[in-house]
């Protein structure tokens, strides 16, 4: 008995040792990849999330007020210490030109804050000694309005939700409630809807065009199949920019397509094919088509011909056999291809930016817009978060269902 037990633990130790060695090997092999992922993927995404809610700048501009206002319970007006701290901060921040930035940020919540801060900042050095409460209110009666102090209290917290809310057309009202922005200012929800709509349309177009191509490839002779495969992969060997720009050349008013249509007499005026939604659909479908064809082709290659033959021998016409027996077996390919195309389309930026009109821009365009033109990293990050959440939820909802992990490309 004892001997058996001893050899038992021995065996377990040996097993553990070999298992541990395997684990060390695995970790060693994947560490470089993991580091790359960490540095270039997870860290930037984490930073993006952080930037979208980060509010520490405000506390740096108005440090004394930030501290003093925490003592205030938010009812009525704050006491003298808050007013004194505000005066001290403004005296310091106005010459440093940071007060305007704070004003712009607070104006987001309550229109009028920007002018209030600038006006007060200009005059604050002329104020006498304490007490400051009455003096400030005399300087501008807005300082006697509790709404401004409520906004200030919220605006001096470490984090803020205003950017994320703004990315969904929501804001805080005067009573600290989250409400929708007025209709004439709401834009982002319609942009998100447009992004989803364009992506869905492109996915559908890719499916309709890609399915016959994949089917043909799967059933053609090896020679034809290779030629088609090269044609398809050619797309990957040319840069996205070149491909998109060449569509402009092809589709413009005096482009190849319009000259052909005009000379053949099919149309009497050149069609608007580019710098509008049609252009976006054409160019994006072209760019994303291989991502639909490859998974479809891979699934179709695996479907042996005897299924359709069996269906035919059981009395089905070739069309019925195709619809009821063949297509259902390509479901995994349809799902995977659609998901890959759709998710990529959601994040498209360059193609719609180049061949679309102002009404065809997608979410990514506005991310770039806030980075490049407004230098508002917080808003850009908030929109980026929206895009990521959108993509992630589509992946989670549909990825599991289509068994995307089962699909191999090529």
């Amino acid at each position, binding site marked *: 008995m004892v001997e058996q037990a001893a050899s038992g633990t021995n065996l377990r130790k040996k097993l553990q040792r070999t298992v541990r060695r395997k684990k060390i090997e695995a970790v060693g092999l994947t560490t470089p990849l993991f580091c790359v992922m960490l540095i270039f993927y997870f860290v930037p995404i984490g930073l993006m999330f952080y930037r979208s809610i980060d509010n520490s700048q405000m506390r740096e501009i108005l440090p004394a007020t930030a501290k003093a206002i925490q003592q205030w319970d938010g009812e009525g007006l704050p006491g003298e210490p808050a007013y004194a701290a505000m005066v001290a901060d403004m005296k310091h921040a106005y010459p440093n030109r940071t007060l305007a930035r704070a004003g712009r940020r607070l104006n987001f919540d309550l229109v009028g804050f920007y002018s209030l801060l600038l006006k007060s900042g200009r005059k604050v050095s002329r104020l006498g000694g304490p007490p400051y409460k009455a003096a400030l209110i005399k300087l501008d009666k807005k300082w006697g309005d509790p709404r401004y102090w409520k906004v200030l209290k919220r605006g001096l917290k470490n984090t803020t939700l205003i950017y994320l809310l703004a990315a969904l057309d929501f804001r805080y009202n005067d009573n600290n409630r989250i409400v929708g922005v007025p209709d004439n200012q709401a834009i982002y929800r319609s942009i998100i809807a447009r992004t989803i709509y364009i992506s869905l349309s492109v996915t559908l177009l890719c499916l309709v065009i890609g399915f016959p191509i994949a089917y043909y490839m799967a059933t053609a002779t090896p020679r034809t199949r290779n030629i088609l495969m090269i044609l398809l992969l050619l797309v990957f060997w040319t840069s996205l920019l070149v491909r998109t720009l060449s569509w402009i050349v092809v589709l413009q008013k005096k482009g190849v397509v319009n000259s052909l249509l005009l000379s053949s007499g099919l149309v009497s005026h050149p069609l608007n094919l580019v710098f509008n939604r049609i252009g976006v659909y054409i160019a994006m479908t072209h760019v994303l088509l291989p991502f639909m064809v490859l998974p479809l082709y891979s699934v179709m290659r695996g479907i*042996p011909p*005897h*299924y359709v*033959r*069996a*269906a*035919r*021998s*059981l*009395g*089905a*016409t*070739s069309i*019925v*056999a195709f619809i*009821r*027996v063949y297509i*259902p*077996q390509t*479901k995994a390919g349809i799902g995977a291809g659609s998901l890959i195309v759709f998710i990529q389309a959601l994040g498209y930026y360059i193609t719609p930016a180049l061949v679309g009109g102002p009404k065809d821009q997608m979410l990514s365009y506005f991310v770039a817009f806030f980075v490049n033109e407004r230098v508002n990293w917080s808003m850009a990050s908030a929109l980026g978060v929206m895009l990521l959440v959108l993509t992630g939820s589509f992946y989670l909802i549909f990825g599991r269902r289509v068994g995307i992990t089962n699909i191999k490309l090529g």
Partner: protein
Amino acid sequence: MTTDDFHVRFNRVQKSYDGVTLVVKDLNLNIGKGEFVTMLGPSGSGKTTCLMMLAGFEAPTQGEIVFNGRPINNIPPHKRGIGMVFQNYALFPHMTVAENLAFPLQVRRMSKSETAQKVRRALDMVQMGEFGDRYPAQLSGGQQQRIALVRALVFDPELVLMDEPLGALDKQLREKMQYEIRHIHEQLGVTVVYVTHDQSEALTMSDRIAVFNDGVIQQLASPNDLYERPENSFVAQFIGENNELNGTVVSLNDGIAQVTLDNGEQVFALAVTVEEPDKPALLSIRPERVVINPDETGAAHTIEGHVHELIYLGDHIRCRMTVGGNEQFIVKVPNAANNRRLVVGEHVRVGWTAEDCRAFATLQ
């Protein structure tokens, strides 16, 4: 029987896939109604091709296939009404067993209630009533096989084709299924064309067997005839175990040939395809028809045998010896009480009746 009474008729059918070689050469085959005909032959001999032409998935390059008195060369597969069991079953993986069985009925626009009833009866026929809601992947190989079988039968075809339906099953299950297929065939009275390259399967199941080689039917006969009376050396070698001896025909007398073996010994054999003296001949004798130390009354003649190896197999002893210059000559000695035990190295006399030894002309 006139030619029109046959259920299926291959009339001078040829098939070439590449326009160069003929995979099926001049095939003539008549199959009666309700018959169980097996196509048996080595790999690549054109069996599947014949079945595919009959099912309508390949077109004959030349010749005519007649089904129910009607040429069907130009009828598409789905209008032929021929059931087919594929080697790998081809059950639709995205449909349940019941949906698979309902498929041929649905495409024939049968009413819902009738479909359900037929599906139920089909499942019961193979004792799989409770498996209707499973998917094919959730069935064992044998169960999939049964479903494939009844799916090919559920729409009441008059003709069912089966291409090595039992090829993927283990030996025991295969034997059980052979019995079951045979049973269903008798019960329903359908015509069956069956393909296999397992000769024991062909022998146990078929009414008639067509032995294929190189795109030609070598012999079409009942299992009994095929085994007892092969018409050429290919069939003799292909069906069952056979000992071969080479020799030269000395004389022909009343269908019996006298042959001098290569080592000079003289034997008598039934002349099957030898036609004149002085021609080389191939003799073929079944191991169980050879008698050791025969009393001179039974055998026409005896010759010398030298025992090399004995394998004890329970009901018989397998003995390898040199006979007539062939060192791989096998004799099956029944394990009977009165039989003397053989010893390795021993010299014995062996013999057989002239009718059991078949002489074929060879081309040397």
